[in-house]
C-alpha cells in the first residue's frame, strides 16, 4: 500500500515535470514558427540539429574541457582561499577589516571591467581562471565568516570547560554551523562563476574555448549554433554544480542533516 502511494507520487512528479518541460518547448517552437526568422530565433529542432553536428567534432569536446578546466581551477582556488581567509578573518578581526575594502571592490566592480583589466594583465588564456576566482572568492570569504559567527557560543563554552581539542571543536561545533552557509554560498557562486567565466571568454576569445564558440556563432549570425552552445553551457554548468555540491556534502557536510537555514550570501 505504502509503496503504491509512493510510486503514485513519484509518477505524478515526473508527469508534472514532463508537462512543464513540454509546455516551454511548445511555446519556444510556437514563437519560432511565428517569427519565422532563423537569425532572430532558432527553434528547438534547429538547436538540436546544430548540437548533433557539433558533438561529432573533437573541437567541441576540447572546448568544453578547456573552459571547464579553467573555470574549475579559478573556482577551486577561490573556494579554498576564500575559506582560508574567511577563517583567519573570523579569528583576527583586524584581518577582516584589512581585507574588507578588497572584498567590497571585488563585489561591486562590474565583471566587464575586470575582464578588460585581466586581458591587459594575464592575456586571454587564463582570463576565465582569474574571473571565476574574482567572482567566487568574495562570496566564499563572506559566507565563511558569517557561518563561523553563527557558531553556538554555548557549545563553545562547553568545549572550553571540557577542554575539547581545537580539531574536534572544528569538526563537531564549527563545521555544522559553517556548512549551511557554505552550501548556500556555493549554490550562488557556482552559477555566477561559470557564467562570468564564459562571459570573460566571449570578450577575451581564448583559442579553443566555449567562449570562442559563442563568439564565432555571433560573428556568423548562426543562432542555432549559439543556442546549442548555450544549451551545452547550461548542461555543463548544472553538472558541475551537482558534482561540487555532492562533494561538499560528502566532505564538509558529512553527517549534517539538511535543514532550512538562513545565510548571509
Amino acid at each position, binding site marked *: 500500500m505504502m509503496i503504491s502511494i509512493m510510486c503514485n507520487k513519484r509518477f505524478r512528479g515526473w508527469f508534472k515535470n514532463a508537462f512543464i518541460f513540454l509546455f516551454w518547448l511548445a511555446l519556444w517552437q510556437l514563437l519560432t514558427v511565428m517569427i519565422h526568422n532563423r537569425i532572430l530565433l532558432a527553434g528547438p529542432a534547429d538547436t538540436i540539429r546544430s548540437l548533433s553536428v557539433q558533438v561529432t567534432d573533437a573541437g567541441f569536446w576540447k572546448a568544453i574541457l578547456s573552459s571547464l578546466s579553467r573555470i574549475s581551477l579559478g573556482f577551486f582556488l577561490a573556494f579554498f582561499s576564500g575559506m582560508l581567509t574567511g577563517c583567519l578573518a573570523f579569528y583576527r578581526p583586524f584581518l577582516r577589516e584589512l581585507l574588507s575594502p578588497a572584498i567590497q571592490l571585488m563585489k561591486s566592480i562590474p565583471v566587464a571591467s575586470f575582464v578588460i583589466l585581466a586581458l591587459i594583465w594575464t592575456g586571454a588564456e587564463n582570463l576565465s581562471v582569474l574571473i571565476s576566482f574574482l567572482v567566487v572568492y568574495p562570496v566564499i570569504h563572506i559566507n565563511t565568516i558569517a557561518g563561523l559567527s553563527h557558531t553556538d557560543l554555548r557549545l563553545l563554552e*562547553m568545549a572550553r*570547560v*571540557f577542554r575539547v581539542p581545537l580539531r574536534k571543536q572544528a569538526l563537531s561545533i564549527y563545521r555544522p554551523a559553517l556548512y549551511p552557509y557554505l552550501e548556500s554560498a556555493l549554490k550562488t557562486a557556482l552559477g555566477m562563476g561559470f557564467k562570468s567565466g564564459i562571459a570573460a571568454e566571449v570578450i577575451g576569445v581564448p583559442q579553443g574555448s566555449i567562449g570562442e564558440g559563442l563568439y564565432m556563432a555571433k560573428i556568423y549570425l548562426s543562432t542555432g549554433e549559439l543556442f546549442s552552445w548555450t544549451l551545452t553551457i547550461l548542461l555543463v554548468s548544472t553538472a558541475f554544480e551537482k558534482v561540487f555540491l555532492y562533494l561538499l556534502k560528502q566532505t564538509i557536510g558529512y553527517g549534517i542533516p539538511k535543514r532550512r537555514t538562513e545565510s548571509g550570501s
Partner: protein
Amino acid sequence: MVFQKGGQKVEAEQKNIVIKNLSKSFGEDFVLKELSLTLFDGHTYCLMAPSGAGKTTLFRILMGLEKPDSGTITGLTGHRISAVFQEDRLLEDCTALQNIRLVTGHSVSSQEIETAIQRLLPKDSLGKPVREFSGGMKRRTAILRAILAPASFIIMDEPFTGLDRETKLATIRMIREYTKGRLLLISTHNAEDVDLLDGEQIQML
C-alpha cells in the same frame, strides 16, 4: 555560609579549592558579595540558594567562563573540570555516544560509554541523534557526559530539572557510583537531594 553536614575541619590539601571574598556584579546588580568557601577534594557538595542568589555565576567563575570583580580562588589549577550546565549544551545531530566521546577522548572505551548509556537511557536511543530525544533524555545525556569525562571536579547546575522521581533516583545512583573520590558541586532546590547524594549542604544566602 552554613555547613549542615560534614563540616569537620580538614587540613586543606593542594587540590582543595579555596574561595575567598569573591564578588561579582553586573552593572549595579551585585550577584556575588564577599563569598568565601572551601571545597575539599573528593567531597560532594549541594549548593542550595534561592533563584538569583548567584549560583550560576559562581559556577561560571569556577569554570573560567567569567572573571570575578574581586576575591581569589586557589586550587583550581590542579583540577580538570566537567559540567552539567543549566541548558543541556549537546550536539543535536550527534548520538549520545558521540556527545560523550567528544569530551572523553580515549580515556573511556566505547563499550564503557555504551554500558553507561544503557543504564540511564532506553536501549533504542543508542543510534538516535540527540535532537530526537525528550527533554529528560537530553538531561540524562548531559549528566552522563559530565560523569564520564576525565575530570576531577564536576559541577552540576540543577541537573535534575525535568526528571521524574524514578529517573532521578536512578541518575543519582549513577552519579554517586561514577563520581566517587572526585569533587562534586551540585546546585539544587530540593533538600532531599542532599541526603540522596550523601552530600554536604551549602546554603547560599
